[in-house]
């Protein structure tokens, strides 16, 4: 059962929305898809009640007739950095949820899940050429900080993926999972490439491409004066019907190219529309991660 985005929008805060999404996700989730990832063997420790049986070293038991369990480095400290594009274009929303609200809800729900399994979650928000940073930590108190930060989000200014990539590279020195929430409407040519170069630093990069249905279909009929939302003063007066065909061709090419480039660099790419059920989208994402883990692929 999915959560209708219009019902989700009626919930006043990101916290409540994220919880609703997480509950929907948990009802269909059996175990964390992130368990055991990015960990290294450290030492043996004598078994004590409470230790997981799956970590018992049965070879040592055969040799020593004693129960030892393996200990791993960073066992419970997967570092996840969520980057949110809070440019002006993310404020657009033809559905009850804007793209920014959708990104924030999705990020909060994901943070909820990750912190719930003791992972460290950080937040990097890009807005009007600057960014604000919440370092990765775990714990319920940190979740509240993240959710409150997301709750206060407002979009403004232009999208600059290159700056976002630089900031992410700077803030994630060790291997991290990086989730980018953006519409990727960056006018510069190298923005996406800069972002994808994070893969070269062994980061696990996932692009959440947040789009509005209007942007996918251009459903307008009347003569319209289109205004830019990123504060650059651009405007275009046009008859949407006349432009629709070429616009959709442009948009399809952009989406296809973006997905192709992202997957080619080993990144995960998930397109999320603001009218999608977010719990379903999150489950889809988690299921894909689980499959990738079983297949031994990075994603």
């Amino acid at each position: 059962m999915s959560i209708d985005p219009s019902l989700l929008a009626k919930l006043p805060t990101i916290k409540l929305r994220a919880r609703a999404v997480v509950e929907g996700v948990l009802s269909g989730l059996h175990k964390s898809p992130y368990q055991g990832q990015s960990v290294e063997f450290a030492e043996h420790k004598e078994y004590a009640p409470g230790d997981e049986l799956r970590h018992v070293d049965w070879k040592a038991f055969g040799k020593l007739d004693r129960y030892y369990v393996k200990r791993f480095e960073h066992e419970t400290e997967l570092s996840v950095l969520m980057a949110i594009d809070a440019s002006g274009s993310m404020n657009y929303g033809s559905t009850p949820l804007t793209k920014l609200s959708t990104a924030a809800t999705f990020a909060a729900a994901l943070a909820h899940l990750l912190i719930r399994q003791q992972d460290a979650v950080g937040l990097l928000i890009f807005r009007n050429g600057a960014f604000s940073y919440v370092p990765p930590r775990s714990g319920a108190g940190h979740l509240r900080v993240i959710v409150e930060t997301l709750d206060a989000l407002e979009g403004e200014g232009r999208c600059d993926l290159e700056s976002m990539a630089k900031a992410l590279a700077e803030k994630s020195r060790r291997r991290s999972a990086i989730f980018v929430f953006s519409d990727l409407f960056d006018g510069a040519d190298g923005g996406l490439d800069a972002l994808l170069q994070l893969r070269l630093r062994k980061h696990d990069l996932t692009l959440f491409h947040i789009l509005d249905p209007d942007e996918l279909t251009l459903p307008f009929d009347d003569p319209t004066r289109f205004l830019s939302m990123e504060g650059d003063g651009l405007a275009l007066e046009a008859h949407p019907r006349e432009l629709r065909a070429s616009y959709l061709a442009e948009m399809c090419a952009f989406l296809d190219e973006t997905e192709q480039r992202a997957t080619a660099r080993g990144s995960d790419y998930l397109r999320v529309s603001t009218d999608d059920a977010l719990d379903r989208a999150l489950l889809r994402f988690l299921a894909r991660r689980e499959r990738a883990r079983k297949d031994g692929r990075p994603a």
Partner: protein
Amino acid sequence: MALSFAHPELAVGALLALLPLAIHLFNRQRARPRPFGAIAFLMRSKRQTARALRLRKILLFCARTMLLLAVPLALARPHFVQPTESAQAKGPTATAIAIDTSLSMRAVDGGRTRFERAQALALDALREVPIGDPVAVIDCASDAGDAVTPGFDREASRRAIESMSPTHAFEDLSACLSRATQALAASPLPNKRVLLATDLAQAGFDLGAPTPTVQLPDGTVTKPALILLDAADGDAPLANAAIADLDIEPVPALGRATWRFSVTVQNNGEGALSDLGVRLRVDGEVVAKGFLDIPPRQKAVQIFTHRFDKSGGGAIQGSAEIDSDALAADDIHHFTLDIPREVRALVVNGSPHPNRFLDETFFVRAALDAPGSPVRTIPRELDALTPEDLSACDLVILANVRALSPAQVSALSSFVDRGGGLFISLGDQVDADLFNDRLGALLPRRLRLLKTAVHPKAQSPKRRAARLGSLDLSHPALSPFAAEDGESLMAAHFFSYFLLEAEGQPTGRTLASFDDGAPALIERKQGQGRVMLFTSSLDRAWSDLPIRAAFLPLMQRLMGSLSRTLEVTQSDSLRVGEVKTFPLPFAERLREVVAPDGERFSFDEPPSPAGVRFSKTNAPGVYEVSGLRQGELTRLRARDFAVNVDPVESDLRRIDVDELKAWFGDENVTRRTAAGTGGRGEDGWPLWSLLLALAFCCFVAECLLLRR
């Protein structure tokens, strides 16, 4: 040439052409502002498609504008107006609209007759006349005595034009122009103009006639402006063939009731005609067909020979026809023909002879039994003549009969009273006293004594022989001998003949006399029949007439006259509009004539001494005559007559407008074609249809552009 409109109020609709511009401006103002995240994609799309979009927009704008402009303009019926014509409209003008309704206006061109075009042009012209100007409408077919004055009742003028119809007659357009000009004289306005709606057929104009003028109120004489409304639209003359003449004559050499029909066909066109079908129709059935090749402007004759299967005679109706063309009315020529019945003549031989050349009746029987003769002879000996014989014949020839019995005379007298004919010739068997005694009541004049001018066997008998001195050429039987045909008759020598008693009771009409004044042939009516007395013989004993060339026709015509079959031949062929005169006394019995269109006309007027006149010959065809016969109204088929169109109207060549200008005055004449009056464009298509075609094209273009 300026543009004008037949329905100017509809031209206001052309303002609709501003609608696309207004919608464009309105939509620009109406553009709703909308913040949009993916504006960069929109701008890129716009950059890519801007040129094509702009072109498409311009084309759409043009198509819509032209569509909305063309439709109202087409409905307004635009036309070009000659500037000279406009220049002539200086203030109030009295206008006379004359319409040519002659036969040539029936020519069909492009599915419409030229009269219909002329009518439309005249109605258009009437609409253009300012409300305050007086208008007179003249039908060129009307009589010169029908005075028309300009009036202000535009509705009446419109009705007058609409009620006109083309005739089948020739019309003198010069006279029509004169009538139109005279009609304008009744208006005190100084500006006057005549609009003549015509096909400008050359035959209708008489440029030798005086130029029509009109007197102004100040006494000066001027010519009105003449505007020719060209119903032929300036086109080349239509190809038209017509039956110019039909000559019908009997062909005795081919047998009785055999007639030759010579159909003269005139090619009035500029191109040669090939395999033009010519047909002869008798009583509704086509009895002969032929084909003609006729060079341009030439005539050709198609001859048909037809033998009628009417042994008893009778009237027939028929027509000669050619393949139909632009002017159908002149492609048929109607005729009526009365085939004379076979006349049976009882020939009573008073002096038979074993040698047939010396037989009294050899020559007369040979003449009457000749091929093509309407008479058939029945020989009888005098003693064998019975009353029953008389009932089976139409006339009796008594050739050199000595005397008849009283019973025979009585029967013969009754026979003549009933309408039979009696021809009496004399000879050596005739005793004057006995003849007078027995046949005195029947003779036109009584016999006196025999005169022998010279004995045939005397030396040079012809020098002293008598000759005919005079002939009554007014008699139908002798009328063909008026010219050289009569020379043979007048050259005949008569050696002996009976002199007659001086005129008394009974008397007769002397048809021929000898050079000494003695009657040679005398006729008398008795009862319903007639008696002719020839005072010489019918064999060669008393004259050489039987071996003269005139003998055969003379005998045939005399017998025809006696049997009253001589005058019934082809009836006169009248032209449309000509008067048919029925001579007395026959006319006294006429009661009714049925025209080809079924309209009935009665003879109300009392007959004049010349007879009864019938003048309502307005349409070509056969007019059927009815009259009283034995007190009952009966169809008199023999009196039917045919009326045909005047071939002058078949020549559709157009008059040179320059000649017309030279006649009427160059500065006064302008020609307005249908193209100039809203009918047509320069290429011959009506302007309004061109505009509608343009509108349709614009509509299709708009649909295609919208689908892209």
